[in-house]
């Protein structure tokens, strides 16, 4: 079981994190809830007859459907009319044969495809599971690094924005100060008052820009933190790779042939394998076909 940061702190401080009997208390609590809930539920006896009667009632209440006499011939005539308008299909025996042979081809191809899919893949580099997993881990590492480059670039650019914004802020502050002094000295000049107001508005905008950039930076830092899961997932993949490696070693060991007996040629078709094996009559016909007349 993995430890939380708090538990690690507690471990480092030699303080117990939770009383030992806390789990027992919890379990007792849960048992209590289960017992009490079991007690509360009383099985209700359901009168099936009442339900059936109700259903009967519903059925009885349904409006009676009047059996209307319909002219079947009219309907058929209409259908015939529709059919008549359809393009005539020429009965061509050869086209049916072609269709049947096409269907046979499709069926054969499908069977072949299925057989191919079931065949074990060659143990080349691209089919080895550990190799594939290793490739996935390395590729995602590379891509994660590239994502990090992008995030770092945005951070660097944001820093430039912050710097130039700070410079603007400083200038606007000095302008506000100057305009305030001038405005106080020359209260009759409306233009000064107007510019002071505008300068204060721009000053507020620079503050807002700083806030936005800081917020963006925080989000980027958050994204960078989330990218730790790449490393965690990579380690999970490595754990799977380790299991496969051990399993391979185990299977190699268990299937290993310690005897020095030379490998004998194996039979390709043994009686009972299926349709590919021959019977007596097949053999006789083959003998008669291939035997040379002496």
């Amino acid at each position, binding site marked *: 079981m*993995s430890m939380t940061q708090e538990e690690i702190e507690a471990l*480092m401080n030699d303080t117990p994190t939770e009383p030992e009997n806390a789990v027992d208390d919890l379990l007792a609590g849960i048992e209590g809830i289960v017992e009490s809930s079991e007690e509360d539920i009383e099985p209700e006896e359901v009168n099936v007859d009442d339900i059936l009667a109700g259903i009967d009632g519903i059925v009885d209440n349904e409006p009676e459907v009047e059996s209307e006499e319909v002219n079947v011939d009219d309907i058929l005539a209409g259908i015939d009319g529709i059919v008549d308008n359809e393009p005539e299909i020429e009965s061509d025996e050869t086209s049916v044969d072609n269709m049947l042979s096409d269907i046979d081809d499709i069926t054969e191809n499908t069977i072949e495809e299925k057989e191919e899919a079931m065949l074990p893949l060659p143990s080349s580099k691209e089919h080895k599971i550990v190799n594939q997993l290793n490739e996935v881990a390395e590729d995602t590492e590379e891509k994660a690094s590239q994502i990090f480059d992008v995030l770092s670039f945005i951070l660097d650019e944001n820093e430039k924005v912050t710097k130039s914004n700070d410079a603007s802020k400083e200038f606007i502050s000095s302008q506000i100060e100057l305009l305030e002094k001038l405005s106080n000295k020359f209260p009759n000049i409306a233009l000064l008052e107007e510019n002071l107001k505008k300068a204060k508005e721009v000053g507020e905008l620079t503050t807002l820009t700083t806030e936005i950039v800081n917020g963006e930076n925080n989000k980027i830092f958050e994204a*960078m*933190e989330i990218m730790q899961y790449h490393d965690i997932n*990579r380690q999970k993949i490595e754990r799977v790779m380790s299991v496969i490696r051990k399993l391979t070693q185990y299977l190699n060991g268990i299937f290993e042939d310690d005897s020095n007996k030379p490998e004998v040629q194996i039979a390709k078709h043994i009686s009972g394998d299926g349709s590919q094996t021959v019977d007596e009559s097949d053999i006789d016909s083959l003998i008669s076909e291939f035997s040379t007349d002496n």
Partner: protein
Amino acid sequence: MKILIVDDSSTMRRIIGNVVQQLGVPKESFDEAEDGVVAWDLCQKNKYDVILTDWNMPNMNGLELVKHIRSAGSQHIKTPTIMITTEGGKSEVITALKAGVNNYIVKPFNAPTLKEKLDPFFKK
């Protein structure tokens, strides 16, 4: 303040480096190593104020590195060392503490956690 960041994942090294930079340490003030062997080599050549190391790494793991760091004759025998790892088991934490790490962080961590762990060493 010179810091050594040891992790086989380049992404993790950058994440840790980023937090360290946020604490005011310039990029030039920290070195990176992808395994214990490279880290131990750097430790013999340079003097670090803090070492941040992962556990599971190829060639030489973090635990072995800590043992090397704490071995007699090492110039980093008293250097604050923090283990940053996915190993979240109690026995692993105890093993690391016994090997000589000063603190332990389980991945994934957040910037405030690492800052909190680093702060005492920065104030010294």
